[in-house]
């Protein structure tokens, strides 16, 4: 594409991918038999789901009395889990809608998986109100069906009913958005498939052809859906917060709840996206598509939303004190100093303090730390909901009815079951559909592929007059290299280049053919030239990145083997 991209923009697609290579890489998981980590993950997820289903059956058979809820604490783990899952669902639509409107290219690497995550998280959330009602077999009483008792309507003034509308709308719109994005990619899978798979994927792809008019409408549709999904995503958690904020319970009855819940939802959603994406990129070998640049961007969102949540916690405390209202003051004192103090401090530590580590670029780009913090935040956001719900209810207006609540194994089992359900659905999704949006990654390749932008770019954009000139010089520089090599070959000593990380026998042979035989020669070569040599050479060096080779070769040529060892320990397949 011809639009300008700043040089300091980090590439979002690594490995010098061609369009065909993108198809190969991203369709591969749907075509191959699953690997061992997937199978282990799937067995664990299905086991957790199975136990969860058993606990749900137990609840329905024996009644809600199998939970430890009591007269004082009427909402416990069920609503905590419900709000937690709904919150997690928020990142998907944020990434697909709001980042689309902001033209953030990095969304293309993660939007598909994040949207899938939204849908699965909402399914997990919807389970809780379904079983919390108690007699689930008469759940149709909710609906204004014609019956002998007259036309009984639900109460449209009730936040709980608003919630039903908000979440059903959110689920439907997310599903439509996700599926419409999937249609062209299903067509890609279809056109590579044979036999029964072809029929199945043709059904899934709705007969997509790739016609120019269809693409035009598809883009209009995506943009318009993003436009209306943006206020929607903000409305959903606003309405969830109304479940609490419209009540008269001190600690719930606050106007700060809607923005605070929305920020918290995005925060927890991004934490879950990171948890999933870090596993997915390793498991499905998608490191070139979900890059450190993506991870860093998400960590920045985590830092911002986490800090907003922190400000909200402190504002609540301040307003409780400033209001002069003793019940409100007691509610917040009780949160921090009452029987559930551990969950309050757990929340503060996990949500407010832990993400502050991401002020440092080094940590934002560290995969292990990011993964760890993402888990910590998932736990912290669960604590937040537990603090809001259980600690508030435990100390109500009448001290004689004060109570304490711990969950039973049934409640814990149902929560475990929803985690199992979530991962079961997600793992199936990774085998059935391309986890990264193929068409969308292709459409950003020319502006965000690492051969076009960033330090490894090869400067031959084909669309202007420089094209011919650039590719000419490009060829001649390699010719020169070869010529020099032939001239010098007589006298040179050949070092074992394979000692450097990222260089195998084939790469070493290619480098030797291009006249690079010794560590010293390699250390003097620049990365761009090495990449040219790889591109010109026989064989597929898509996965090889020469960025660290000169630095490694310098140490090797100076005989600093210990320092080289240290450097190699920090490298990942020869990449920084």
């Amino acid at each position, binding site marked *: 594409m011809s639009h300008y991209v700043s040089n300091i923009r980090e590439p979002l697609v690594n490995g010098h991918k061609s369009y065909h290579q993108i198809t190969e890489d991203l369709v591969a998981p749907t075509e191959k038999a699953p690997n061992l980590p997937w199978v282990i993950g799937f067995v664990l997820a299905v086991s957790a789901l199975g136990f969860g289903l058993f606990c749900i059956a137990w609840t329905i058979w024996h009644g809600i009395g199998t939970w430890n809820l009591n007269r004082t604490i009427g909402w416990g783990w069920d609503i905590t889990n419900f709000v937690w899952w709904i919150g997690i669902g928020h990142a998907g639509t944020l990434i697909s809608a709001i980042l689309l409107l902001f033209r953030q290219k990095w969304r293309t690497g993660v939007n598909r998986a994040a949207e899938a995550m939204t849908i699965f998280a909402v399914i997990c959330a919807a389970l809780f109100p379904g079983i919390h009602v108690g007699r689930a077999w008469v759940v149709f009483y909710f609906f204004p069906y014609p019956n002998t008792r007259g036309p009984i309507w639900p109460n449209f003034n009730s936040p709980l009913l608003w919630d039903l509308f908000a979440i059903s709308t959110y689920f439907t719109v997310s599903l439509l958005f996700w599926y419409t994005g999937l249609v062209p990619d299903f067509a890609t899978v279809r056109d590579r498939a044979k036999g029964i798979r072809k029929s199945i994927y*043709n059904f899934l792809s709705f007969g997509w052809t*790739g016609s120019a008019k269809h693409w035009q409408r598809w883009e209009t549709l995506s943009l318009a859906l993003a436009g209306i999904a943006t206020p929607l995503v903000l409305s959903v958690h606003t309405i969830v917060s109304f479940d609490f904020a419209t009540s008269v319970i001190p600690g719930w009855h606050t106007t700060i709840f809607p923005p605070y819940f929305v920020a918290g939802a995005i925060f927890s959603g991004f934490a879950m996206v990171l948890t999933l994406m870090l596993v997915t990129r390793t498991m499905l070998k998608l490191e070139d598509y979900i890059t450190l640049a993506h991870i860093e961007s998400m960590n920045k969102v985590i830092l911002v939303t986490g800090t907003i949540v922190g400000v909200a916690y402190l504002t609540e405390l301040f307003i409780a004190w400033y209001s002069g209202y003793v019940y409100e003051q007691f509610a917040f004192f009780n949160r921090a100093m009452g029987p559930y103090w551990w969950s309050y401090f757990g929340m503060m530590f996990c949500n407010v303090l832990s993400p502050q580590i991401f002020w440092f670029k080094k940590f934002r780009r560290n995969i292990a730390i990011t993964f760890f913090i993402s888990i910590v935040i998932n736990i912290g956001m669960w604590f937040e909901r537990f603090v809001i719900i259980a600690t508030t209810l435990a100390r109500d207006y009448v001290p004689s009815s004060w109570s304490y609540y711990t969950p039973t194994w049934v409640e814990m089992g149902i929560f475990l079951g929803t985690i199992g359900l979530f991962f079961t659905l997600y793992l199936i999704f990774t085998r059935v559909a391309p986890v990264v949006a193929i068409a969308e990654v292709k459409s950003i390749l020319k502006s965000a592929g690492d051969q076009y932008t960033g330090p490894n770019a090869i400067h031959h954009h084909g669309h202007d007059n420089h094209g011919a000139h650039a590719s000419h010089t490009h060829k001649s520089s390699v010719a020169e290299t070869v010529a020099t090599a032939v001239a010098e070959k007589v006298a040179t000593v050949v070092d074992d280049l394979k000692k450097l990380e990222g260089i195998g026998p084939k790469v070493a042979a290619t480098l030797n053919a291009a006249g690079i035989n010794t560590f010293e020669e390699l250390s003097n070569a620049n990365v761009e030239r090495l990449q040219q040599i790889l591109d010109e050479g026989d064989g597929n060096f898509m996965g090889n990145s020469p960025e660290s080779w000169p630095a490694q070769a310098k140490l090797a040529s100076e005989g600093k083997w210990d320092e080289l060892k240290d450097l190699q320990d920090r490298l990942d397949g020869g990449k920084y």
Partner: protein
Amino acid sequence: MANHKDIIYGLYNDEEDLLKAVEVARDQHLDIMDVYTPFPVHGLDPLLGLSESRLHIGAFIYGAIGTLTAFLGMTWIFTKDWPIVYGGKPYWAVPSFIPITFELTVLFASIGMVVTFYVICGLGPGVVNPTIDTRITDDKFCIAFEKGANESGAAESFLSSTGASEIHSKTI
């Protein structure tokens, strides 16, 4: 497929070649049947003379229907069909109708727009469209001509002169 079409199509390796070719076709007034690409190529629509999609106008209309359905529905239910006082509010409690009105606006607009998209594109579950070339959804950019609409030779010479990497004839 009742109506079989004889077509000639050329495949290009890069979207920039395709854009240049489509520009040439426009200048030569060639009658392109359709252009197929693996991803949305920006700048193609004006060259092909495609008018802007009106889906977003549809979205507004569907959304307005959703707004009216929700608001008038709740108004009718709570003032005419079964008036009940909830929490001391008036029957016609406009502020508390807003959340559901908003949600149904979004819901109607989204569903309406998506259904319209599939209907006008002729796509949907069970639809089987003829495949021109399986690499169009991978990495090839295709310009297709109907044989009848182009004098024999014009399309081929256009395709070969604009750098198509492959030229094929096919009945679809």
